[in-house]
Structures are given as C-alpha cells and as structure tokens.
C-alpha cells in the first residue's frame, strides 16, 4: 500500500487479558510464553497480546485469524465495547482509551459504526426503524432520519421492505439492513465483525461484491474481521493475520501470498482457492487489435499473419471494442477486393471487467470459442482471456504478457 496515505486508526501495544492474575499473565507473555501456557499457569486468558498496527484512511483493512485468535476482541477494543488491559487506540490522533463516557458516545455515534456477525437487528422494530436506530438515539428529527435511513437502505439495495420485520427477511437481506443501519450515521469508520460469515456462500459473494461497490462510492475506512482467507484476499487492501492473540503478519494480499511470514501463514495460503483470488485483470493478455478507422482488409490480414493469430479484435480510435474478425472472413474479403471490413465483424463477443474473479468466468470460458474480452466501464478493450492462460494461472504460473 502506498505510504502517502494518512493514518486513520493507530493501535499501539494493545493488550487484553481476561480473568484474574492479570499482572502475572502479562509478565509471562513478555517472557514469550504462549496463550495456552499462560492459561495453564495463571488461569487468565490472553485475548490480544501487544497488537501494533496502523490503518490508513479509505482502505479496507482485514483482520484475519481462526476462532480464538483474538480478532473479535481486537475490533471491540477499537470502539471500546471491551476495555483493553493496556495500550492505546488513536483515531485521527485522539486516544479512545482516554475519552470520558460522553466523548466516547459521541465518537460511537458520529465516527464509527459496527456491523455484527448475526446482524444484531432489533426484532421488535421494522426494517426502517432498525436503519434509523443510530440517528434516533442522536435525537435527529423523524423526517431527517427517515430520509437518511432510506438513502442508506437504497445504497445497500434494500427497497420496499421498510415495514417488514427482520425475521421476515433472508440472512443476506438482514445483513444488508445491518450495513444500512451502520451507513445511515455516515460514519468515517466501519467495523465489520465477521459480517458475512453467517451467510451462505452465494450470498456471501454477493455481499462482498456489494461492499466493494459501496466502498468505491463512499470511501470509508473499513475494518473487516474474517476467518476466511479467500474473503480477506478478495476484499482487503491490506490484511493482518492473527494467531493466538498475536499479530503474525500485516501486508497486501499480494505480500501475504508471495512472502508468507512463517509456516503458519504458508499453511494457511496453501488452501486458498486461487480462482477466487485471481481476477480477469490478473490473467488477461494483450490482444491483437485492429483500429477500424485506420485499417482495411489487406492491412488487417497482414497484421494477423505477422502476429500468427486467427482472430483479431476490432477497436475504434478510442480503443473501444467493436467486435472480432476471423482470418477466413478477412481472406475472403481480400479476394473479393472489398475495402471495408465492417460486414464481417462479429459483434457478439463475451465481455467482462478486470475485477471479476476467474471463478465466476470458469464455466463460460470453457464453453465459448472466442476468448473473453476484458473491457472497462467505457468499453475500452484492456485485454483478453484465453483458456491456456487461465489454467496456467490457476496452477500458480505467472501470466506472460503476450500470446
């Protein structure tokens, strides 16, 4: 991650020990004893042990670990649902640990909102009333909070359910409401505690995509807790891996995959489904393109021969994709001595964007004859995906740039 980003949240030496004999437990952990040894000797449980990290403004920071690794305790210390044993949490340079009740309440109301694993929706309130909760307790008037709650519900794609109750909605929908409730406050920081873990795989993927989509528009600082490495790699700008209350490694998904800090992380990433991590952008190659506004059939054929391809991608001056031409058709055109290639362009080309995970394209790639064209939102051609490159990437090989 670039270093010019400003720090939003800084955590220093943050420690939480549950139980009695805390001083003794602390001393043992300083001596390097691990969680289970300390538990056996003192009966105290080390939740988080001297965590140190920075979270930058506008990034999705994923804290990852298995259950018992301390990730949920850690996130709860950031908004002080759990009071730390020692250490500091600085938000915009302000120490959360030193805040009095009123100041803390203010920060919770305005600066950060939380999304919960099991949604945490109030069963006796309608969807709209749930989304309004954060504003309601701030004393925002009814019209304003209804408007903001409706906007937030719209952002997450839940409209027309305002008068329903949470248990009338599916899990995925309920979590969207949970997210809307958090967004309605317009917080700078979102704390998401295993927010998608209770959802089925399809819904989870949907929500991950939606979160990325929302993040593109809103640019929040998101602290996301997960036990699923695939999820972490997919949504995280940076990932912090925890094990037994300690931070093991912090870095970009790329860093973690290519330079695992130790054996634990290595074992972890071995099981990653690469098809979910790799996107179309990762495996695409540069195609042979023909600018329709410059080239006729002869030039096209010549270039195709030179590049030894049987299919060429036709673009216009702005590199916008128009279609593909087949070598046989071009040869025919040249024989008939026609000057325009427009009639032989096949415009039905499967397209996708750079961020689509390969796993979503697998089926289609195996079925279509023409390689997928990767385009951006202006339909400019960025690359193409050929079968061989996909298989190579899944096997862990680097993708070379040319066909």
């Amino acid at each position, binding site marked *: 991650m670039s270093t010019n980003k400003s720090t939003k949240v800084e955590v220093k030496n943050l420690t939480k020990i549950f139980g009695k004999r805390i001083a003794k437990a602390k001393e043992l952990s300083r001596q390097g004893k691990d969680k289970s040894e300390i538990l056996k000797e003192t009966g105290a449980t080390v939740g988080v042990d001297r965590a140190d990290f920075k979270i930058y403004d506008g990034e999705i920071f994923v804290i990852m670990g298995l259950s018992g690794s301390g990730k949920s305790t850690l996130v*709860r210390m950031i*908004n002080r*649902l759990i009071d730390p044993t020692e250490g500091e949490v600085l938000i915009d340079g302000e120490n959360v640990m030193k805040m009095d009740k009123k100041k*803390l*309440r*203010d*920060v*919770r*109301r305005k600066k*950060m*909102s*939380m999304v*919960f*694993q*099991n*949604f*945490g*929706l*109030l*069963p*006796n309130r*309608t969807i709209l009333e749930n989304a309004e*909760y*954060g504003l*309601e*307790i*701030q004393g925002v008037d009814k019209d304003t909070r209804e408007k903001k709650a409706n906007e937030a519900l719209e952002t997450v794609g839940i409209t027309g359910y305002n*008068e*329903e*109750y949470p248990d009338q909605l599916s899990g995925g929908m309920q979590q969207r409401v949970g997210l809307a*409730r958090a967004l309605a*406050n317009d917080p700078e920081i979102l*704390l998401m505690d295993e927010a998608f873990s209770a959802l089925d795989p399809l819904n989870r993927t949907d929500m991950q995509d939606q979160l990325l989509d929302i993040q593109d528009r809103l640019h929040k600082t998101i602290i996301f807790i997960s036990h699923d490495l695939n999820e972490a790699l997919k949504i995280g700008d940076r990932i912090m891996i925890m094990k037994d209350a300690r931070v093991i490694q912090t870095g970009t998904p790329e860093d973690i995959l290519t330079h695992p800090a130790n054996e634990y992380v290595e074992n972890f990433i071995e099981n990653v489904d690469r098809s979910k991590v790799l996107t179309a952008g990762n495996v695409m190659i540069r195609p042979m393109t023909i600018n329709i506004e410059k080239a006729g059939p002869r030039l096209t054929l010549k270039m195709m021969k030179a590049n030894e391809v049987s299919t060429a991608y036709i673009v216009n001056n702005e590199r916008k994709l128009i279609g593909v031409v087949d070598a046989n058709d071009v040869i025919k055109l040249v024989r008939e001595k026609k000057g325009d290639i427009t009639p032989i362009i096949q415009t039905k080309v499967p397209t996708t964007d750079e961020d689509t995970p390969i796993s979503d394209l697998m089926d289609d790639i195996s079925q279509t004859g023409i390689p997928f064209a990767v385009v951006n939102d202006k339909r400019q051609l960025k690359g193409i995906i050929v079968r061989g490159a996909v298989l190579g990437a899944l096997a862990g090989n680097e993708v070379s740039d040319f066909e």
Partner: protein
Amino acid sequence: MNSLLLLGSIPKLPLANWIDGFVDWLVQFTGFFNAVTNFIGSINNAFQWVFDALPIWLFIVLILALTYYVNRDKQNWSLLIFEFLGLLLIWNLNYWRDMTQTLTLVLTSSLIALVIGIPLGILMAKSHIAEVILKPILDFMQTMPAFVYLIPAVALFGIGMVPGIVASVIFAMPPTVRMTNMGIREVPDELIEAADSFGSTEWQKLFKVELPIAKTSLMAGVNQSMMLSLSMVVIASMIGAMGLGTKVYFAVGRNDAGNGFAAGLAIVILAIILDRLTQSLTRTRRKN
C-alpha cells in the same frame, strides 16, 4: 453424643418475641403508615368509584370491547361469548358489586406490584449485588404462607381493603421482579453490543432495546402477579377486604356449600377474563 445432648439443652430461641418486638417498633411510625394507608386507599377508591359509576351493561360492553381490541389481529370469538355469559351470570347471581370490589383489589395490588416490581427487576438484571440480595428475599416472600402477612398488615394498616392489598402485593410481586430480571438478562449480547456501539445512553438502551425485547417475559410476570393477587382475595377477606372473597369466607363459616361455590365460580370467571386479557397483551403485535 455429648454435644448433641448439649444442642438439645439450648433453650428455645425467642424468635417470635424478636419479631413481635420488630413489629412493635414499626408501629411507632404511625404517621408513615397512615400516609401509605391513605395513598393506597385512594387508589383503591378511585378504581371503585369508576366501577360503581359505570352501569353494569356498559361495564360488560367495555370489557368485551377491550377483549376485542387486544385480540384485534386474531379474534377469539369463544372467549367473547364466554365473557359475555360469565359476566351476565355474575350479575344474575347478585355478585356484581362484590366482583367489582375484588377486581379493584386485584387491580390496585397488581398496579403497585408492577410499579415496585419492574424497577426492582431491572435493578436485579443490572447489578449482581442486587440480584444476590433480592433473590432470597423474593423466595421468602413467595413461600411464606400468605396468611402470615395478614398479622403485621393489620397491626400497621388497620382493618379493611388496604392491609389486604398490602398482603397481596407482598405475595404477588415476586413473579414480576423475577420475570423482568430474566427477560432483560436474556436479551442477546449482540443486541446489547449493537445498542452500545451506536452510542446509546444507558436509558436509551433500557427503553429502546432491553425492555421492548424483554416485554414478552415481563408481561408473563405481570400475568402471574395478577393471578397470585387474585388468589389472595379469600385470605384478604379475613381482615375485612370486601368482595367475592368475603362471600366465600362467610360461606365457610356457615358451612354453606351452595353459596360458597357460587361465589367461587364468580372468582373463577373473573380470573379467566383477567388471565386471557393479560395473555393477549403478552403476544408481540406487529403493524402489518
């Protein structure tokens, strides 16, 4: 062996004397107890005044309308018919005024039990110390034979409705306290965390999250309290609390099975109506 003999030779503890002494000591605060008597008496009289002012037919219509209203999402016609016939029977048996007196006693003592019991339940849920102190006291209140409360009640509040109400409150309050405590403690942690994480104050958390979610269990406690205070009416009649209980009590004295059962039946009808009404309040209702 020796020590056991020694234990037997300990003179009888003057427990009864101690308690007498305590009650005597309490009696000196006549001013305070008079004030309480007047206060409870005026609540009681207010209820009674309303019930006496209502024509009987209107009273019946109101109860039917109330039943209809609380069950508006799922109408229970057999209950409405039962209430109608049951109230007509009470009217016909000439127990109407006695029934309203009993109703007054039940409503007054339930109201007081709620006003004291719900805050105590909340306190118990919030404070471990309060729970440790209150639990044995509640056990004591509920298991001590209800008759026993009558004796100091008479000493402190005289004869009539008020001591009956006080004894009923003591006997009937524990379920409200317990169920409030339980309801609040059973609110899922995640909802408490959600309330906190959005910056709720303690009061906001209580009124917007904890109490609404504990409502079902809280109302079940209210229902139980009401039934227990109804069960006190015959006992309370022994110290001059008027109503259907008095009819039963007199019938016992005269060995009059017929009138005893007739008055008892009226109590049963009243009990069923009160029970069903409070139970329908317990159900969570939704807008759509």
